[in-house]
């Protein structure tokens, strides 16, 4: 009789454990695949953003022919009128476009003269390794408040910088011969109001030989 009770008890425990298991064995590959599927994909986001939002917005960039004289006349007023800043920071961004003539080419920059008649380098298109948030933050199209995890927002920066290096710079380096006329659109990050803006360092988003 006692043995029967034990068997019944074990059977009940076995059924309960079968219906409500204390743990699940899940293949690690499956878990990683599920995590990857739900994780934010900054590369994919950046590619979509580049094509569908960034390039169509280039016509909203301030013209270099307007911005450069404004900076020369009154940097603080130019900043107030044309720049944008993010959060609490002394740094600010210009989103600009224009056409200039190549005055010099180095390993990591191509200098342009924009104003008619000048041979001074007024714009320096950055062509080395691209770092920082100028493209992400310079246009105002993206906002940190839209991202629950700031790591995702920061990954967008790195992905956009990579797109500049792979989609823009190879062509620009080929176009940039001294004397060539080049259209550019891009973003400039300025550390603070004491920064020397001659030339203005611009990370290009689009360039064309004219």
């Amino acid at each position, binding site marked *: 009789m006692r043995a029967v009770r034990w068997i019944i008890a074990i059977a009940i425990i076995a059924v309960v454990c079968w219906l409500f298991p204390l743990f699940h064995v899940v293949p690690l590959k499956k878990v990683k695949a599920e995590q990857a599927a739900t994780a934010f994909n900054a590369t994919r986001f950046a590619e979509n953003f580049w094509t569908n939002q960034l390039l169509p917005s280039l016509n909203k960039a301030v013209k270099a022919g307007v911005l450069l004289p404004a900076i020369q006349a009154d940097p603080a007023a130019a900043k107030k009128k044309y720049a944008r800043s*993010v959060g*609490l920071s002394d740094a600010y961004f210009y989103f600009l476009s224009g056409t200039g003539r190549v005055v010099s080419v180095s390993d990591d920059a191509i200098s342009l003269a924009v104003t008619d008649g000048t041979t001074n380098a007024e714009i320096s298109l950055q062509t080395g*390794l691209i770092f*920082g948030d100028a493209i992400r933050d310079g246009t105002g199209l993206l906002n940190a408040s839209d991202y629950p995890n*700031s790591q995702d927002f920061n*990954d967008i*920066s*790195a992905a956009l910088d990579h797109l500049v290096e792979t989609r823009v710079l190879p062509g620009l380096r080929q176009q940039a011969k001294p004397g060539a006329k080049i259209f550019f659109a891009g973003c400039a990050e300025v550390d603070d109001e004491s920064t020397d803006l001659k030339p203005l360092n611009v990370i290009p988003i689009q360039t064309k030989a004219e």
Partner: protein
Amino acid sequence: MEKAKAAGIPVFCIDREINSTNAAVSQILSDSYSGCVKLGQYFVKTVGKEGEYAELLGIVGDNNTWNRSKGFHSVVNRYPGLKMVAQQSGDFDRAKGLEVMQSILQAHPNIKAVFCGNDAMAMGAYQALVSAGKDKQVKVFGFDGADEVVRMIAEGKIAATGMQFPKTMARKSAEFADEYIKGKRDFPQKVPVAVELVTPENVAKYGDYGKK
């Protein structure tokens, strides 16, 4: 945070991020990633484009830890000659930083630099380097802008740090709370606060957890 919100208690976050855009009224956060991009660029400039280095991470579950590490590596990883030979957590703690640095130095005596996710670990790492007689060989990089580290940068003991401006963050939070009490409800969910690079070249401008 969700419970506080449900109870009608407005919460303003300072420095430590929560992964949500609707629990806190506003989050005022150091832009750790961008600050460490600047630190990474300065690291390459001062250490060079070749050599072995180590990294002391903060608390591994903290966003700040990874934003700092990712910002730093977004730069340094572009230079294949720079080899990270050790990456260990020092939990943002000075004593743990010292202990971890001691073991790293035993395994990797030829490192040229160590990047630390905060200044407490940087001070611990520096102590370990002094004990090992390697404080002139290994450059130490921190993050926070702690007063003691700013002094150590001026003395040439630590190479650089990122100044976080905690007083600016606290002041802005207090201003937001005041505006909230007076009826305002429309606040930016996340307010990044710029981090500035502090080096021997500009250290005179910094102190007391901010700009002088």
